[in-house]
């Protein structure tokens, strides 16, 4: 038995993009215990319902997270719309779907880049970000925002995109597919990458379900659960199946996310080809009264926006359960007994977004 060393890991750490702190108790290079601490960026978003009316809160929902911004605002809007029984025009639903999928592309490419950085593959990191930049540019052209799109509102969306512009976007996303294939080949074929991913942090199917994992974490362990199959927005009108891998290790999680890239490209194309004409928003009057758990599939997994209104301008309660919150228990379980060199990979593998977890 070697001497025990305690390595402080975070909240400021070069490979951690997010403020989480872990005290790693090491025996030589083996982690025997990981003690987490979060709470560095608790911003009291949920408390803001008292200051902002339910329409203004969309801007807040948009800013919960910097990488899955749009889907947060969409989930919030869907929650309020459900409470108020607002029917959103179909064109708006399709636009929401397209933007969600582009946001997923951008988020997954970002994740791939950070993952490459975590196992010390700098050029792969840069290449992922280079591709992501083009997705972000497309979002900017369509909505005006690069990361925080700010286009969702209760009752629809705030900007329409002409059909020919959509066709152009679809063509460009498909072109990007070629570059993404090259990227995917390195992630999935290269032996030095495989050496860092295969067999690292294995969660078998039952463990993943028991630990309450969501999103790609869960699907990599062989459970076919994807909130998009609920058919919110226009997901009921497009054809797709959840992407599932069996092995439950970091490699499988990487593979799920890479396959979801191509799925997203396909979904953008499908949605753009089926988009109906018409309005993109309805006028909403009155105040929300009632409650609803709005669920959406973030790039990181299932997100819950709980909205409860008491018939006034201000919501009574707004609660966000982000996917990372559900994935943290799995992270703690995986860290026990891993090697120090695997820690960045494992932390990244849940695609942590601590800032949105703490809201």
């Amino acid at each position: 038995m070697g001497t025990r060393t305690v390595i402080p890991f975070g909240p400021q750490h070069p490979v951690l993009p997010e403020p989480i702190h872990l005290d790693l108790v090491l025996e030589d290079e083996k982690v025997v215990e990981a003690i987490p601490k979060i709470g560095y960026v608790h911003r009291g978003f949920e408390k803001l319902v008292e200051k902002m009316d339910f329409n203004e809160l969309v801007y807040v929902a948009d800013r919960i997270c910097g990488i899955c911004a749009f889907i947060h605002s969409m989930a919030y809007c869907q929650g309020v719309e459900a409470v108020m029984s607002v029917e959103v025009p179909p064109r708006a639903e399709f636009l929401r779907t397209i933007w969600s999928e582009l946001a997923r592309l951008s988020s997954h490419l970002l994740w791939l880049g950070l993952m490459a950085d975590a196992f010390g593959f700098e050029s792969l990191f840069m290449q992922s970000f280079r591709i992501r930049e083009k997705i972000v540019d497309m979002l900017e052209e369509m909505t005006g925002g690069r990361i925080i799109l700010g286009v969702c509102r209760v009752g629809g969306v705030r900007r329409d995109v002409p059909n020919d512009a959509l066709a152009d976007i679809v063509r460009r996303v498909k072109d990007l597919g070629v570059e993404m294939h090259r990227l995917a080949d390195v992630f999935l074929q290269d032996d030095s990458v495989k050496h860092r991913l295969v067999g690292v942090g294995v969660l078998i199917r039952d463990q993943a379900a028991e630990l309450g994992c969501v999103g790609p974490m869960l699907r990599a362990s062989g459970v076919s659960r994807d909130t998009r199959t609920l058919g919110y927005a226009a997901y009921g009108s497009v054809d797709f199946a959840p992407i599932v891998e069996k092995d439950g290790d970091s490699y499988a999680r990487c593979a799920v996310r890479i396959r979801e890239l191509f799925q997203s490209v396909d979904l953008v194309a499908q949605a753009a080809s089926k988009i109906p004409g018409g309005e993109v928003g309805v006028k909403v009057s009155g105040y929300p009264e009632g409650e609803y758990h709005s669920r959406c599939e973030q790039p990181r997994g299932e997100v819950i926006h709980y909205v409860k209104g008491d018939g006034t301008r201000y919501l009574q309660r707004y609660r966000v359960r982000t996917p990372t919150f559900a994935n943290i228990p799995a992270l703690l379980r995986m860290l026990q007994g891993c090697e120090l060199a695997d820690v960045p990979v494992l932390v990244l593998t849940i695609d942590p977004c601590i800032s949105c977890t703490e809201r």
Partner: protein
Amino acid sequence: MNPREHQTIEEIPAAALLERVQKMRSEGWRLVHAACTRLVADQEVNYCFDRDGQSLDSPDSATLRGMHTLRVRLPMIDPELPSISSFYWPAFLYENEMHDLFGITVKGMAVDFHGHLYTTMVPTPYVTKEPDHGD
């Protein structure tokens, strides 16, 4: 245009919580999340469960998915709850959050952060500070 998810709420007394949660677990529900809401004079805790493809009201309809919520009402002063982390281990995070933000004493959490999950300037800000709508 698309059917909204079916969601049901079942209000139960705090004493029956553990028994009810155990039943949910044995029926194969997964814990989606747990959270509190401050009401006017008291507060409520929601435990949301989900079972793929089924809802409590219509267990035979496989296409309809749903969420089932167990709701417990608690007083504003010195609220107390038993921990459900013996049935759902990951619940400890939600329970620590309830403790830190709403001041609920949760007994028997699998991992107890002792109030250090969220360090806020105002302790238990969600109950101690009255909603103040400003403008």
